[in-house]
């Protein structure tokens, strides 16, 4: 396959966007099938490029002009994250009907996200990721300008921080290409910028942020697509940082802090989930909760942790697709989704979390406590999930954008995929981990039937399949008739839950007391500075002249 | 040369202090004479001729527009007088004491005229006086290249002279051009 084919996963959605726009301007809406075809074509291209070779492929097309070249790279990490972005996006684009403007912007966002993932260096990732963020904002506001969306300032800050990290690498080491950055160039400040970028890009904070807020929009067409394209990108940066650092972050403290932050993020989401008043409110916290667990394990710095994190992220991608298509009403689809989301055995989420907690204990020292914390948070999620089964549905969604059977199928797939975690690990996660982290002999292994770690062997098929059978039988026997929709009190309420919002309101309403306003009259100051007064000019000139004599 | 610099100062001061057309015209004439004489030995012989011609044209046009009076030092012009004296002293100090090398009179004249004409335009409200100041400024800018170490040629002096001669005619000329309707506020 010629290396120019690496452009396909980015170009195909771009071409699709162009075709959609051309037809749209002529008055034809191509419909969701045609729209989704662009994204599915990119999925196909990704599979065709990767599966035959399963080795790193690169393409370099010359300098772009701001210190970086158009360098694309497809390795196992790009393949893994590419699937995480493309598959849910393609599903959502195919099934949900949009007008041509929303469709074009959505597909462009997919192309930009793929550009960020396939980019061979930090600066190009920043350019493409920033583009994806911009398109996400436009997409969300185009759908409903009054509905919650990510703070543009946070997204811009994230990609600007990554740009700065990239140029620092260029200045220090002459390159910002992932494969070429010397380990010594990835200093603590540079990594801090990259980590900050990753956390802000994905909204990985303990308080309610955009990955949760967007799920409360009246329509979830754009929300699902935005989460599918943007949310994995922050984690992508943290994974690529391993490649630049030869398998670890510059200091152990970064591993500890980020992994702890992951637990706190998951905890925050769990606390909000268990106090949700509607099922929609619960589901809004699912992606942040899964992201917290992913961060906990990705940041550990161990091969098993990274593998667990990648599997968790794949699970998050599946849940994104599921939640985007799930209607706001009670029913088996909702129930199965809750079961999958909280990580009931033998779901994929269950397996990922078991392996994740195992990885914290294997990491040793302080990290074991992180695992304990993660387990407690998991239990809280179980409680939240149990409570959520009886909650009222929510505000309701337009029926045209919901597909309960598809949503249930996706959730059920993650439930039954638990026994296949060995396959997912060996085919999907371990190659990506091996690309960025030198593998000590025997750290992670196994095959279809089991996962082998340093301290244990997890016979996934032997354990999970019976659990799956028991679960199916139990569901068949109980069904949904025992579920009563009734408000159940949360397990606990945080006393400071609304404090941040109250503080923000107080700051916004703050004003200068009347008797002091004449001291700082901004209007008068502006008039003086902008009025073209010669005295001001003369004073400025004197100040400049004084300054140069110092 | 020192006399020429002094004449230029007097001319510039008159342009600053006068509000009537006769005063402005006289100031322009004196300024022109001073600058032309200073430009000659600075390697700009042809330029000096251009400066003289441009300045005299400007003075002539100035004499034909504005209040028919001298208007020298009207009421409230004390600050302007102070500016003229202070800037003269400052320019003299810079040209003669702070800086070195030949051409001190030219340095004095350029610094003084540019500074004074700039001040005149900043503090004035009368278009006639402002146009006279612009003409004077153009003449000074025309001879300023004479400060360079190498001979600058006459181009700047010719351009300055043309501007000085043309700017005082601009109101009449642009009144005809301005009859083309300006771009509306809505679009541009």
């Amino acid at each position: 396959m010629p290396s120019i084919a690496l452009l396909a996963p980015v170009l195909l959605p771009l071409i699709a966007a162009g075709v959609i726009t051309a037809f749209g301007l002529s008055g034809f809406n191509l419909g969701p099938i045609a729209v989704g075809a662009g994204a599915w074509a990119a999925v196909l291209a990704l599979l065709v490029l990767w599966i035959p070779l399963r080795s790193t492929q690169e393409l370099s097309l010359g300098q772009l002009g701001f210190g970086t070249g158009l360098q694309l790279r497809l390795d196992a990490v790009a393949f893994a994250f590419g699937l995480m972005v493309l598959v849910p996006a393609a599903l959502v684009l195919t099934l949900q009907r949009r007008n041509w403007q929303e469709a074009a912007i959505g597909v462009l966002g997919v192309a930009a996200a793929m550009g960020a993932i396939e980019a061979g260096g930090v600066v190009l990732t920043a350019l493409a990721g920033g583009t994806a963020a911009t398109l996400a904002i436009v997409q969300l506001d185009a759908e409903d300008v009054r509905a919650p969306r990510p703070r543009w300032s946070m997204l811009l800050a994230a990609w600007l921080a990554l740009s700065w990290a990239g140029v620092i690498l260029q200045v220090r080491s002459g390159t910002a290409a992932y494969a070429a950055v010397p380990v010594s160039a990835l200093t603590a400040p540079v990594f801090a910028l990259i980590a900050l970028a990753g956390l802000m890009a994905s909204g990985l904070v303990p308080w309610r942020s955009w990955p949760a807020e967007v799920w409360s929009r009246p329509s979830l067409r754009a929300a699902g697509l935005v989460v599918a394209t943007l949310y994995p990108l922050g984690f992508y940066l943290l994974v690529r940082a391993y490649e630049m650092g030869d398998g670890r972050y510059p200091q152990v403290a970064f591993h500890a802090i980020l992994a702890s932050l992951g637990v706190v993020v998951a905890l925050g989401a769990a606390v909000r989930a268990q106090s949700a008043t509607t099922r929609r409110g619960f589901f809004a916290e699912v992606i942040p909760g899964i992201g917290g667990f992913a961060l906990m394990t990705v940041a550990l710095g161990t091969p098993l942790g990274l593998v667990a994190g990648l599997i968790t992220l794949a699970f998050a991608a599946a849940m994104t697709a599921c939640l985007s298509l799930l209607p706001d009403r009670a029913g088996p689809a909702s129930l199965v989704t809750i079961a999958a989301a909280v990580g009931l055995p033998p779901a994929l989420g269950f397996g990922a979390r078991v392996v994740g907690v195992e990885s914290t204990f294997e990491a040793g020292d302080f990290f074991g406590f992180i695992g304990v914390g993660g387990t407690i948070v998991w239990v809280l999620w179980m409680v939240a999930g149990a409570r959520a089964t009886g909650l009222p549905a929510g505000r309701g969604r337009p029926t045209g954008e919901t597909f309960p059977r598809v949503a249930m199928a996706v959730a059920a797939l993650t439930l039954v995929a638990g026994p296949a975690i060995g396959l997912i690990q060996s085919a999907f996660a371990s190659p990506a981990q091996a690309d960025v982290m030198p593998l000590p002999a025997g750290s992670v292994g196994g095959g279809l039937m089991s996962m082998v770690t340093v301290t244990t062997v997890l016979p996934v098929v032997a354990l999970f399949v019976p659990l799956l059978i028991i679960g199916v039988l139990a569901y068949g026997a109980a069904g949904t008739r025992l579920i009563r929709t009734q408000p159940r009190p949360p397990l606990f309420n945080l006393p400071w839950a609304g404090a941040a919002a109250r503080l923000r309101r107080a700051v916004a309403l703050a004003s200068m007391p009347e008797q002091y306003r004449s001291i700082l009259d901004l209007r008068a100051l502006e008039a003086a500075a902008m009025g073209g007064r010669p005295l001001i000019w003369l004073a400025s000139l004197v100040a400049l002249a004084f300054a140069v004599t110092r | 040369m020192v006399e020429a610099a002094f004449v230029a100062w007097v001319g510039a001061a008159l342009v600053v202090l006068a509000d009537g057309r006769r005063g402005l015209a006289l100031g322009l004439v004196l300024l022109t004479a001073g600058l032309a004489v200073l430009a000659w030995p600075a390697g700009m012989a042809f330029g000096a001729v251009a400066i003289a011609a441009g300045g005299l044209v400007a003075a002539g046009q100035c004499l034909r527009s504005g209040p028919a009076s001298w208007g020298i030092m009207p009421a409230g012009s004390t600050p302007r007088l102070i500016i003229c004296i202070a800037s003269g002293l400052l320019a003299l100090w810079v040209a003669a004491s702070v800086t070195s090398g030949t051409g001190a009179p030219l340095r004095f004249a350029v610094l003084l005229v540019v500074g004074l004409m700039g001040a005149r335009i900043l503090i004035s409200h009368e278009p006639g006086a402002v146009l006279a100041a612009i003409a004077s400024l153009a003449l000074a800018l025309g001879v300023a290249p004479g400060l360079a170490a190498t001979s600058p040629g006459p181009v700047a002096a010719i351009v300055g002279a043309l501007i000085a001669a043309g700017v005082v005619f601009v109101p009449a000329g642009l009144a005809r051009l301005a009859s083309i309707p300006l771009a509306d506020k809505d679009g541009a």
Partner: protein
Amino acid sequence: MEPELLLAAAAALGLAVVFTPLRVPRASLLTWGLLGLAGMAAIVIAPSLDLVILILLVLAVLQARLTSNREFVTRLRAPVLAIALLALGLAFERMQGPVVLDRFGAVGIVAGLVAAIGLLPYVHEFDPDESVVASPIPWMAFIGPPLAATVLLQANQVIPSDAGDAFGAMLIGLGLLNMIGGSLGSWRTENDASAWRYSFMADWGLAMCGFGLAIADGRSAALLMLFSIVLGRLPLYLWSRQALREKVPTDRPINLVVAAVLAGSAPFAGFPARVLLLRGATQLYWPLALVLAAGMLLWLPSSLRLGRSMGVPRGRQAVGVAIVLALNVLLGVYPQPLLTLAGL
């Protein structure tokens, strides 16, 4: 760099004339635009700074005589101050004397340039209801870019190395002042037209920082910023005038895309300019990069405001906006040809 900026200005004029609303008389716009272009061409080809200053005087007088609510004399003040400062600065550089005289000369040239463009602290008086041709905007967005490139190129030939550091430091200092003042002013000022004017100042702040860095990355950043001013902000401002008068903010996707262009988000021209600026600042003095990065976030609230104030472009304007967006995307993703053309 100067010929490229001249071409950009010509292209901006073409866009303005072709895609301006029908009720705007194209003839006068074209006439005054071509006069301005002629003046800029003369500035670019002028062999010395003296001639540049003289041409500047001509342009100032011509523009001041246009019909406007502001007095002729008032409108001349700032440009004449610029001319006087440039002339005095150049004179100081040519005189033999102590080193401090060279520095004062650098002050004069920098201050003169800033006054000519109309940036802080030498801001031209602005009437939001005034015709654009007669307003200070052409100084900032049409004549200003080639003028700045020419003056700085010529100034580098006359300013000795002793004063070079002071020259660069002043450019950066005034750049930061305009960056912060412009972006805050654009966000907080009451009048939308004034907000646009402040936004030009903010962009100029980044350009001046780029010029002040005096390395290839800085100059490249400055060139891209000036291009984004001439071929991005200026046409968008012209097409927003109708909506500014109607005072009806709109929140359509196109307004957000325009906001993204104005904010310098990827993939538009402002983004690589910012990347290059951060790279240049990191090479020389990394705390400056920190200040710049933090300041760049201030563009967002004002850009959202300006994007909304544009209204919904229709008909010819919509085509014009699409062309501007396409140009900005091209420059934003692939600026290399432009930089190669400019010798950077």
